[in-house]
Each structure stands twice: as C-alpha cells, then as structure tokens.
C-alpha cells in the first residue's frame, strides 16, 4: 500500500471522531441531551469498524487477497487428502525431474555456444576423396597456404594440429597434450588471455619457442601461480618460454594442456591430417563457401596432381562438435517428453477422480452463487500448486540425477572411425535449466489442470445435488476422458518400452560382439620417445627399434606378465589412425584415379599371441624379421577377402604407393580385428614388423593374470629401469577402452531403460486408478449382479475386460507410433532392426501382463463384494 493511503487510513480514526463530535454538537444545539445527542450521531454514522474496513479495502488489491484466500483454501484441500497429494507430487517430480536432468545435458551439449567470436560463422574444413572412400580427411599444410591465399568466402583461416609432447625437468616426466596453432589464434577466435598474452602474428619461427598454458594444466602443474609468465618449461627437450594462460571457459573449445605456434618452415612440410577452421564472411552461406572450395581445390589440382579427385567438406564448428552425440540426445529428449506426458495423464486422472469425489461440495458452492471463474481459478490453482511442488521436488531429483549422470557419463565420448572425441562439458543445473523446469512445471499444471475443470464445471448442479446421497457419478463424459487417458498412457508407455527394449538388445549384442581378440586381462599404455628434443638419443630408426625392444624385454621379465608386445595402435583405442595407399606387385595396377587403401599397423612379434588374434595361414613375425632380413608383412582376413578373393595371398608382395620403400612379401594371414569400434566393420589391415618399420610412439599391451592395478607399478618401474626420463601415458585396461567406445550406446541404453521402467510403473498406476474408480462407480451394479446369481469369476472377467479393452487400444496405437518413432534410433542400434518384430511382440506382451496385474487388484476387490452390504445401502 502506498504511503498516502497509509496516512489517510491512520488519520481516519481522528476524522471519524471529529465527524461524530460535530454531529453530536449539532444534535445538542437542536435540544437533545448530550447522551441522546451522541447516540443519535453514532446511529446516523453507522458501523465504525465496517467503515474503516471498507476504507481499507478501497486501497487493498482485492484480487490479491482473494488469491491468498484461494491459496489457503487449496492448501487446506490438499492437506485433507495427503495420499492424493503425495502421489500427484511424486508422479510430477519423476516427470519434471527426468526432464530437467536430460535438458541440463542437452543444454550443456547442444545449446551452449562456444565462447568464441562469431562462433556461428566458424566452419571446419575437411577434404574428401570419394573415389577412395575418404569422406573426411584433414588437409595438409600446403592446402592451408593455398586456400589462405585464394579462398574468398572466408574472413580468415586457422590451422591447428593436435599432438602430444613430453615435459621433463621437474618431477616425473609427463606427457602433455598440445595444440600447435597458426599465430592468428587470438584474432581468429577473438579470445583474450587470462594472464599474459597470446602469440604475435610474426612469431612463426621455431627459435622463439613460446608456449601458452591451458587453464587446467596451469592449475595442476603450477598451482594457478601468476608468476609463471616468463618462466621456462622443457617441452620435448627444448626450452620454451611461458607467455600466457588461457581462461577456463576455453577448456571445452580447446581440451588440451599447452598451445604452441606453428613454425613456418614446418608448416610447408606438414603433409596431412591437420585441422583447418574458417570464419565465413558475414553474408556468405555454407553452400556458397562449399562450392567455392570445391572449385578452388579443382583449380589447385592442376598444379598439384596429388589433389586430383579431391573435394571439400564444410561443417559448422558447433554442429561438427556434437554431430555424433546429437541423435542420442534427441532420442533421450523424446523419451523423457513421453515420460512427462504419461505423468501428466496420471495426475489428470487423479485430479479428475479427486474432483468427482468433491462434486457435491462444488455443486453446493455453485448453488450458493460461486462464480465459475473463481471455481476455475481454484482448480487451476490446485493443479499449479501441485505442479510447482512437483517441479521443486523434481528439481531436487534432477540435482541428484545430474550428480549421478556426471559420474556415469564420460567426459569424452570417442567418435568411431575418426580418431576423435566429443568432449562433454560438465553438466550442472544452470539458470536456463531452472527456467526450463519452471516452464514445464507450469505447463504441466495447465495441461492436467484444465481437463478436470472442463469435466467438472460442465455437470448439472441439480443432478449432482440429488445424486449426492448415493455417492456421485461423473456421467459418460468423465468416463470417456478417463478412458482416453488410459489409452494415451498405454500407448506412450509402449513407445518408451519398445525403445528401451531395442536398446537393450542392441547393447547386449554390442557387448557380445567378438572384437577379434581376447579383451580380458589386458593392460595397455603408451610410450612416446622424445625424438623432437635436440639431444634425443633415439633419432635414428634403428635406435628407436632397439629401445622399444629393451623396454619389452624388461616388461616381459616382470613376474605375473604372461606376455607383452608393442603395437603402433591399440585396437578400439581411437588413439591414432594410419592409413595408406598401396599396390600389389603381382596384380595389374588399379585404373587411373582409383587406389587401393588399407590400415597399416607396426607391431612386435608377440602382438598376435598377446592379443589372442588367431593366425589363419602362414606364420607370424619373429625377432629375425628385422632391418637385416627381407621385408615381410602379415595381412588380415578382411584384406585377403577384399583384395585377393579366392587367390592365395601368401608369397605375393605389397608396396606402399609413392614410396621408395621396397615391396614386402605377405607371409601370413591373421584374424580380422574390429579396430575402429564394436559397431563398425573390420577394415583391411596390413601388419608390419616394427623392427623393420620403427615408430616414435608405440603402445604396450600386456596380458596378465594379476589384478591390473597391482602389476602396473612393476611395469612402470621396468620401463624406467631402461630410461628414467621416459614418460608413460594413456594407461588403460582394455575393459576401459571397450567401455569407452560403447559409452554413447551405454548412456542411451541405461537412461532409456530407467525411463521405460518409470513409464511402465506410471502406466500401471494409471490403469489401476481408473479400474479402481470404475469399480467404485459400478459397485451397485456389481452388487445387483451378484445378488442375481453372477459368479465371482463373472465379476472378475467383467472388470478385467473393461480395463484390458482400453489397454489393447493403447497398445495398438503405441505399436503404430513406435514404428515411426523408433526410426530416430536407427543410428544408435546395432544388430537389431528398428522395427524388430520380436521386441515389439515382447513389449506388447509385457505391457498386457502389467496391465492385467493392475486391473486384477481392483477386480478381485470387486468380486469379493458382499451383495447384501451393498444393497442395504440403497
């Protein structure tokens, strides 16, 4: 209330006193006695208290007070039926909580913009060669330089390369992940450093040796000390100067430890698999840029034959980051939306039954003159209050769920076949999530609140009052609404359970997939020789091979190690890719423009034994297959089938294209391995003995019967006994690698199964509620039937038939809907069709069983009715 109003009301007492005194004085002047005069004045004035109240009401906002009354009334109503209130709130909490949790995930992954300038105009540029089946490969340094000169569609281009480096000097040697970037980094992304500065455009020479730290690494290694600027760190044996620190909000965009600039000379030599981003000019569309790039690459190919038959693939950066995970998230969003609708249907049902129970009260109020508007408001208020209570409980549930989700969902989800990961930002309940929760709570309140309003307010007051003595009935319309709700619920539950059923099948098939090797009791770790360092002792290939051989000997001597081997790439690890073109010496060369391509793997002789990869023909490598002996290779079954069909590959020779290296004889065929993902097809693979093809980075695979954690220190010490400065990284049991490659499916699988259970439970409660209600309504009829000689089994059948009729319709509708909805899942399913008839049949059966159970309880109660008791009440 305003101050003026307060003042007026405060002065009112005084004003009334004055008024009455003046009137009394006048009466005395007219000849009354003082007592008479005063009474007459008071009588004429009227009820002082009421006058004051009326004056107060002038200034108060009436609707607000009425709202207060209504809220108090509604709370009283809800308190009067605690069971109803609790079930309604719990149901809503499940629906809202699940939605909030999933939305917080979707919000974090799909809806957040990267904190980069014009992030919606940033695109990733790949090159492709469809003739060779390469849909997306990283360009070379020369491509970048050519494009930067000639491409018109972009304001600027940016080049980067992911890599790892070794940090030595302080404590244990450490492997860090790094980004090598062009020096336009700061300007391209429009980012500011947290501390210090980024690179200047002209700092492109290796002799500068500058490094920028990423936030997490700065925190971990330097305890967030601001004095790091100007300090030096030893990276790959060279001394770098720390010039800046990246802010923490760039961690999602650049999930690495350090950032260093490209050296210009090196850039010209970098032959492939670099990353290029472009920032589109504001008025250029993706299609325009795409066609310009394709045209440009065609033109460039006239000077550079190695780019013949290449094209470009442009994808917006923000969708490229999430394109692998998006279908799974959208699926979850649909699923959780279904769950909310089921919850709504259930609560609407509850509210409807509840309102019908109160029909007599409502009829009395209408008869006494209650406005329909106010009644409607009260109903909506009731549903809104319930929805808000459900929303708040749901929020609490979501807090807990996101906590669990955050532990369950890996922060990185590997992308099959791309040696890449989707980085998931941390999930938390943020402001947009809170707004979302509030909105869906209010929306659900409106949704399930309006239905009973239409139902209840349309009934005949007279009839309700007359019937009130006999308990009430809501008439055919109310029954039809309830029936519809049951049908909708069963249909939605069917869709959800089918989705979960398909996921269960798909996931179990995925886990049963034989990856081509024995994955249990296998430990892997990675070693990268510090070759980039100036004084590295391993620059020479022979020395690389020798040091790995010494590591291996030391590890093999560790007690508990059954066997150990080195491989360039651990299957399923997504660590790296090594693909190349080759020719078969004994075969005619492929037609011009076509190439044979295969994966290449350098392994030590014991690799196949350690991994449990079977030898199919010929022999595996031995220690004698070294640089002094003839060059040999092994091929896998996929390679043999694709390139030799029914011929015998043994004794044939393969040669890597465009290379001066000698042809290599095929000496054996080994089993195929699923290298890129359990749901992927095996790819043709050539194995080379690492003694003849040394590498800088190798992964150790160890088979042991001991618990992996107990043997790991001994293995590390064995390696450090050979070279104490050798960093060891990516220590992972094979089980962990497998669970990592299946994480997208696992998340979808677990969440869907939980949702399906909830949906089934809610649907069962809904069916139970409606059947119970129907029994309550027909209790007279049942009594009469029994009095006339109906058997208990007849009554049982009557009630169950009524409920199951609705459920069957729901299942039928759900079946048709599922045929459409499960299409969303095709990309996530493995080894099972999206319309798998077995799953559909099983789910229908399950749903019918649950519904039978839900109908059976009230049906049995109905059949136990004593007709005498019922009829006596007539």
């Amino acid at each position, binding site marked *: 209330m305003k101050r003026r109003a307060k003042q007026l009301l405060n002065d009112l007492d005084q004003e009334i006193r004055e008024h009455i005194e003046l009137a009394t004085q006048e009466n005395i002047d007219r000849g009354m006695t003082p007592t008479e005069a005063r009474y007459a004045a008071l009588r004429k004035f009227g009820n002082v208290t009421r006058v004051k109240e009326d004056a107060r009401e*002038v200034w108060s906002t009436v609707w607000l007070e009425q709202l207060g009354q209504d809220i108090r009334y509604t709370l009283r109503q809800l308190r009067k039926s605690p069971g109803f209130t609790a079930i309604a709130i719990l149901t809503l909490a499940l629906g809202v909580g699940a939605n909030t949790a999933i939305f917080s995930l979707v919000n974090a992954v799909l809806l957040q913009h990267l904190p980069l300038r014009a992030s919606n105009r940033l695109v990733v540029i790949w090159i492709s060669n469809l003739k060779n089946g390469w849909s997306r490969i990283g360009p070379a340094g020369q491509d970048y330089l050519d494009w930067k000169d000639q491409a018109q569609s972009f304001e600027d281009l940016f080049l980067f390369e992911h890599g790892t480096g070794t940090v030595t000097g302080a404590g244990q040697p450490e492997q860090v992940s790094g980004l090598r970037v062009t020096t336009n980094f700061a300007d391209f992304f429009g980012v500011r450093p947290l501390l210090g500065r980024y690179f200047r455009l002209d700092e492109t020479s290796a002799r500068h040796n500058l490094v920028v730290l990423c936030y997490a690494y700065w925190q971990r290694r330097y305890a967030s000390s601001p004095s790091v600027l100007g300090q030096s760190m030893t990276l790959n044996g060279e001394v770098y100067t720390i010039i800046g620190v990246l802010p923490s909000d760039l961690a999602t965009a650049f999930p690495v430890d350090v950032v260093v600039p490209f050296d210009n000379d090196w850039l010209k030599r970098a032959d492939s698999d670099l990353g290029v981003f472009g920032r589109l000019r504001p008025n250029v569309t993706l299609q325009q840029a795409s066609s310009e790039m394709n045209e440009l690459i065609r033109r460039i190919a006239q000077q550079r034959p190695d780019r013949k038959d290449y094209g470009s693939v442009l994808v917006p950066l923000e969708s490229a980051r999430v394109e692998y995970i998006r279908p799974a998230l959208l699926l979850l969003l649909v699923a959780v939306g279904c769950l909310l609708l089921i919850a709504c249907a259930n609560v609407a049902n509850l509210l409807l039954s509840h309102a019908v129970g109160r029909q007599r009260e409502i009829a009395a109020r209408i008869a006494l*003159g209650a406005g329909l508007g106010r009644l409607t408001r009260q109903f909506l208020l009731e549903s809104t209050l319930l929805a808000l209570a459900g929303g708040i409980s749901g929020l609490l549930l979501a807090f807990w769920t996101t906590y669990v989700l955050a532990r369950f969902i890996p922060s990185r989800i590997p992308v099959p076949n791309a040696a890449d990961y989707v980085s998931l930002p941390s999930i938390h309940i943020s402001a947009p999530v809170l707004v979302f929760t509030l909105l869906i709570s209010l929306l659900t309140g409106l949704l399930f609140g309006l239905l009973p309003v239409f139902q209840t307010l349309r009934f005949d007051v007279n009839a309700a009052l007359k019937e009130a003595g006999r308990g009430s009935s809501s008439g055919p319309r109310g029954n039809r609404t309830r029936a519809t709700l049951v049908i909708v619920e069963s249909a939605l539950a069917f869709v959800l359970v089918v989705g979960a059923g398909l996921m269960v099948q798909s996931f179990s098939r995925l886990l049963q997939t034989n990856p081509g090797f024995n994955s249990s009791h296998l430990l892997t770790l990675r070693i990268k020789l510090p070759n980039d360092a100036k004084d590295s002792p391993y620059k020479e290939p022979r020395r690389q091979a020798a040091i790995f051989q010494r590591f291996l000997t030391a590890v093999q001597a560790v007690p508990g190690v059954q066997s150990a081997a080195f491989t360039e790439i651990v299957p399923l690890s997504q660590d790296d890719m090594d693909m190349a073109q080759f020719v078969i010496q004994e075969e005619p060369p492929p037609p011009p423009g076509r190439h044979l391509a295969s994966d290449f793997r350098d392994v030590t002789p014991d690799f196949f034994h350690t991994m449990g990869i079977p030898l199919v023909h010929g022999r595996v490598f031995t220690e004698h297959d070294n640089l002094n002996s003839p060059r040999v290779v092994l091929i896998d079954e996929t390679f043999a089938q694709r390139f030799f069909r029914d011929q015998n590959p043994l004794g044939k020779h393969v040669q890597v294209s465009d290379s001066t290296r000698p042809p290599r004889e095929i000496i054996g065929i080994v089993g195929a391995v699923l290298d890129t993902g359990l749901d992927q097809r095996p790819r043709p693979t050539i194995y080379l003995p690492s003694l003849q093809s040394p590498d800088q980075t190798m992964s150790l695979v160890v088979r042991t019967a001991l618990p992996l954690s107990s043997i790991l220190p001994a293995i590390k010490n064995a390696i450090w006994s050979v070279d104490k400065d050798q960093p060891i990284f990516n220590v992972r049991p094979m089980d962990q690698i497998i669970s990592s490659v299946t994480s997208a499916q696992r998340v979808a699988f677990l969440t869907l199964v939980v949702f399906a259970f909830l949906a089934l439970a809610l649907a069962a409660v809904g069916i139970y509620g409606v059947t119970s209600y129907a029994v309550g309504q027909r209790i007279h009829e049942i009594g009469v039937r029994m009095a006339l000689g109906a058997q208990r089994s007849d009554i049982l059948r009557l009630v169950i038939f009524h409920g199951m009729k609705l459920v069957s319709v729901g299942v039928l509708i759900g079946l048709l809907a599922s045929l459409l909805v499960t299409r969303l899942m095709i990309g996530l399913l493995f080894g099972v069709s999206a319309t798998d008839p077995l799953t559909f049949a099983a789910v229908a059966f399950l749903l019918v069983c649950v519904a039978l159970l839900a109908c059976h309880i009230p049906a049995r109660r109905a059949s136990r009715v004593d007709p005498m008791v019922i009829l006596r009440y007539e």
Partner: protein
Amino acid sequence: MSTREEKGRIELLQGTLDLLILRTLLLGPAHGHAIAKAIEFRSDDVLQVEQGSLYPALHRLIKRGWISVEDGTSENNRHAKFYRLTAKGRKQLAAETTKWEQLAGAIARILRATEERE
C-alpha cells in the same frame, strides 16, 4: 461468499454516492461532516446515507484522482481534512451527470408511458 447480484447493488449505490460527493464538492472544498450534511440537506433528506459510508467513498475518489485532500481548520477551529474536486474529477462529474440524466430521462419516459397506458 458474495454473489454477483449483491456486488451489483453495492456498485450502484457506490456510483450514486460518488456522484453526489463530486456534485457537492463542485461548490468548493469541504470536510467529511459538511459533505454529509450538504447531501442530506440538498436532497431534502430523501437520500438518507449512512454517514460512515461517506469515508470509504472519499478514499475511493482519492484513489481514482477525482478529488484531492488537504489539511485545514473546521468551523469550530479544529484540525480537519478538506476534500477538493480535481480537474479530472470535474470532467468525470460532467460525464457522469450527462449519463445520469440520460438514464433518469429514459426511466422517466418508460414510467410515464406505462402510466399513460393505464
């Protein structure tokens, strides 16, 4: 709970009282008791208003901005509140008066017509 008809009656009474107050204040500012007396006197005691109901009506008119209130001294030298018609109130009075006269005229015509038929 109040029904719609009750509310309607109250509003009719309120409206009339409001009009009378405005009309009274047209002659100049006055305090509460004086307004009550003026209404009774000028209607030849036909309109017997419960004098107390004057005050909520005055508050309502202040809230709508049709009258203003100021402190002053009453005829017996006591502190009193004086109510004064605002420009907005003057306009409102003119509009209400026209409406009221049309209504009164219409009712009078109907009543007369009925009398003539009788």
